[in-house]
């Protein structure tokens, strides 16, 4: 029972630190790295969270799309590549068109189910066209793994994280830390099966 109490105390302390200190924000900033925005061949907006059953994009998916649309309108690349599930890619394409991006400038891929498959699909789409330099739009917490996978697929990656500091309320900080644990598990999995 003493061991259980120690474990409980550790969990409680971790909870307090995660929810009520800026630790999660510091990790977020560290994971995001330095944004590298310069003219490239394409803007790649990776999928995240899909779309609800009524076709509405999740918060993160929408945030990524908006960052990608902004980069396009600022003239950083002539192509916008939208990835994700079928529903997500469709909703993103509709929104991108609504934001004034011509259909000819939008490429979509909706077959991938994992980030690794996304990297492979986008490589099949862009590399034959000779487009290797990409602006990669992803959440800060996802950026290291996403970047490594895209580089592994043959791209020259310029990271453009969607945010820097992250949330400032306890609930969102806990969510951020949960994402970090998920991300570490994903990174470990990809390392073990040789994807990275």
């Amino acid at each position, binding site marked *: *029972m003493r*061991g*259980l*109490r*120690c*474990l*409980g*105390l550790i*969990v*409680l302390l971790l909870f307090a630190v995660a*929810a*009520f200190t800026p630790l999660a924000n510091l990790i977020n900033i560290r994971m995001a790295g330095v944004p590298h925005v310069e003219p490239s061949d394409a803007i790649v907006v990776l999928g995240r*969270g899909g779309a609800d059953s009524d076709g509405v994009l999740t918060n993160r998916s929408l945030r990524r799309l908006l960052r990608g649309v902004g980069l396009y309108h600022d003239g950083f690349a002539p192509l916008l590549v939208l990835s994700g599930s079928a529903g997500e890619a469709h909703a993103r394409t509709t929104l991108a068109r609504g934001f004034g991006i011509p259909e000819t400038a939008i490429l979509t891929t909706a077959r991938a*189910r994992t980030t690794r498959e996304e990297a492979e699909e986008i490589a099949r789409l862009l590399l034959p066209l000779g487009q290797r330099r990409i602006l990669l739009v992803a959440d800060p917490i996802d950026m290291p793994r996403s970047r490594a996978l895209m580089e592994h697929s043959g791209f020259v990656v310029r990271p453009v994280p969607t945010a820097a500091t992250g949330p400032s*309320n*306890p609930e969102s900080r806990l*969510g951020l830390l*949960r*994402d970090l*644990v*998920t991300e570490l*598990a*994903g990174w470990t999995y990809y390392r073990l099966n040789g994807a990275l």
Partner: protein
Amino acid sequence: MGSLALIGIVALTSVAAYLVATQCFGWRHDTLPAAMGETLECIGLAAIFLAGNLAVGAALVFGSRIFLDRFISVYGLSDIALVLLSLLQAIVLQSWRRSR
């Protein structure tokens, strides 16, 4: 509402509960440390349940990918509901242990 406000609210209701328990119900304040110890045990149990649930979930996800050729996203395991369900499992087990 800021983080400190949340802590303040919880502190306030905790003090109120302490006063009601000791003044109205006559609960002895020297039994409080033992109760806090049991709470820590319950949280520890919940952590063990959560680890077990995640391990079983991961095995099912990867097992279905490998053996059934059916894709299930691993992100489903990061649902906050799993934490609450693990806590529920721990509370039931703890109550069961106490009632033996």
